[in-house]
């Protein structure tokens, strides 16, 4: 149906498999394909490489790494919920030095586009991690996970405070290679996500990752205690998809040019398409990797088909398309390719 609106004819000869230009960009990070993994759902890519060729997707977003090795929270660390799950892993990881030596070196040698996710409990910790990553090779972008308690502000989560979030971004920018794009990952657990988005954009974020998990809780009715050892946990999976799409939509409305990496419950190509139409320039597949280890590549192929079926010749044409088609008069003019060089 949209074929008529866009007026695209199928490309090239009749026998050719329809090719869609799936390339996209997040600031000056150019991606050959728009589907990445989500932080904490793909480790550092090695395990998934057994199930599909990880160089065929947009890239790997690694598990958030901290300055020092970290054992994480006690078990049980997860609970399945309707169409989703809660996790309270507590950022278990090897620390940034071991990460650079083992994981990043492997990713670099494998030739994978790598987005390194970092997390800290103080502005200073973020700065020190950024500094350590500065001279490491194989980093295509940094994703700053700000859904962490700030020990210097009575454990207030950075992502919920526009100023604290902004300070983290400034610190990371100051200490990292100026050529490395900085994506800031936002939490949906705020009153107005656009306020945080605008604050981190002003502080120098090159792009936004939207969204992190939503805080949730399950009580085991047999033990009559919280199911997770950590009591609360992050809700992810298809259950949060409508919240995530809404967040992308709201941010795109107020920040027409900011690159957005959308995520939250993406299971199929059509789910990914919702995010693209809402304003995401690329997407991450997280929890559904646990359901289907080759989900990122499958979603990417399904997305290409879905775009083709709707008459799009390229992914870029579809970015923010839902805003253009929106009939409430508040149309943001988003021509194809608008976000390429922001």
């Amino acid at each position: 149906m949209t074929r008529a609106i866009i007026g695209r004819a199928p490309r090239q000869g009749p026998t050719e498999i329809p090719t869609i230009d799936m390339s996209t960009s997040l600031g000056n990070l150019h991606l050959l394909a728009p589907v990445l993994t989500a932080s904490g759902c793909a480790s550092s890519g090695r395990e998934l490489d057994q199930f599909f060729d990880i160089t065929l997707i947009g890239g790997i977003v690694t598990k958030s790494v901290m300055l020092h090795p970290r054992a994480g929270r006690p078990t049980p660390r997860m609970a399945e919920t309707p169409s989703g799950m809660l996790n309270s892993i507590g950022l278990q990881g090897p620390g940034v030095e071991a990460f650079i030596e083992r994981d990043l070196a492997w990713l670099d040698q494998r030739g994978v586009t790598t987005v390194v996710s970092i997390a800290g409990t103080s502005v200073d910790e973020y700065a020190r991690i950024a500094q350590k990553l500065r001279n490491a090779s194989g980093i295509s972008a940094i994703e700053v996970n700000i859904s962490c308690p700030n020990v210097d502000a009575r454990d207030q989560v950075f992502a919920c405070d526009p100023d604290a979030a902004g300070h983290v971004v400034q610190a990371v920018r100051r200490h990292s290679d100026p050529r490395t794009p900085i994506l800031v990952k936002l939490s949906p657990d705020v009153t107005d996500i656009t306020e945080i988005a605008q604050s981190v954009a002003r502080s120098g974020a090159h792009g936004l990752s939207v969204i992190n998990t939503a805080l949730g809780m399950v009580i085991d009715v047999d033990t009559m205690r919280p199911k997770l050892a950590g009591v609360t946990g992050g809700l992810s999976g298809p259950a949060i998809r409508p919240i995530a799409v809404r967040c992308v939509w709201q941010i795109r409305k107020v920040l027409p040019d900011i690159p957005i990496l959308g995520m939250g419950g993406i299971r199929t190509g059509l789910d990914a398409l919702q995010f693209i139409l809402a304003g995401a320039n690329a997407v991450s597949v997280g929890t559904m990797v646990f359901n289907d280890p080759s989900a990122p590549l499958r979603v990417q192929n399904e997305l290409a088909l879905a775009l083709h079926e709707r008459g799009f010749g390229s992914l870029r044409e579809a970015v923010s398309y839902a805003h253009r088609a929106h009939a409430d008069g508040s149309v943001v003019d988003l021509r194809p390719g608008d976000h390429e060089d922001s």
Partner: protein
Amino acid sequence: MPLQVKGEILDVRRVGAYSVLSITAPGLPERTRPGHFVTVGMGGEESSMVLRRAFAIHNVQERGVYGGSMDIVVGLNGPGTRWLTERRRHDPIDIVGPLGRPFVLPKERVACVLVGGGYGSAPLFMLADQLRERGCRADVILGASSEDKLFGVLEIKRVCSTLTITTEDGSQGLRGRVTDILGESIEKFDAAVVYACGPMGMLEAVADIAVAHRAYSQCSVEESMACGIGVCMTCVLPVIGDDGVTRMVRSCVEGPVFRGDRVRWEDVGTIPADALGAPAEAGT
């Protein structure tokens, strides 16, 4: 390397309290070692149960018209296992495996005692078979709370050297627990290795008894798993490494089989203060 297979149910059999599912899985049998497990997708592609469930591989058939198949033993637990036991012949089923580190087999012809609690006996059949092929004794002890929770008593007789049964209510075999007679069995058969699969409490006791009787133990643990392939970090437990350092290790890829004397059983479900990266030493 694990496979992702769209299999088909060949057969569902009731055995006591359990259902045994035979599933087509081309390519999987030749990769499987005793102690490997698979994960099964729940409820089809649109299912609201998004996490896969883990099951020990009970048996594999390499050849046959199906190009390879395998069996799993399913005990009823919650909605996922209920859905599985309601599957019928020809239903499609989504399998990932073989996963994890299998049991380590002895290089020499030594005597081994195999201990299974409840459906924990499932992976011991292949193990007993392969041990016997290598000329090792494989003396099996199976235990459960009651007779219907025992799995495979008749079948395992065909592959084991001797079989001892224990039930807590005395409905079959000796009244009591597998661990009541394990020490005695290790001595009687002069066993060098104990293999065990079952509830965590049983494994802890088995590991202690093995140490006390100077036997090496291989325990297959059962931790809640979200991914089963090593990417999520939900399935961790404290294990002492070769360097003496305790780490929170992933039971899906570094296990499920661990040396019994390396798992800090009493600390499972906690982060021991001396574990690498434990909160006490954060920031040092």
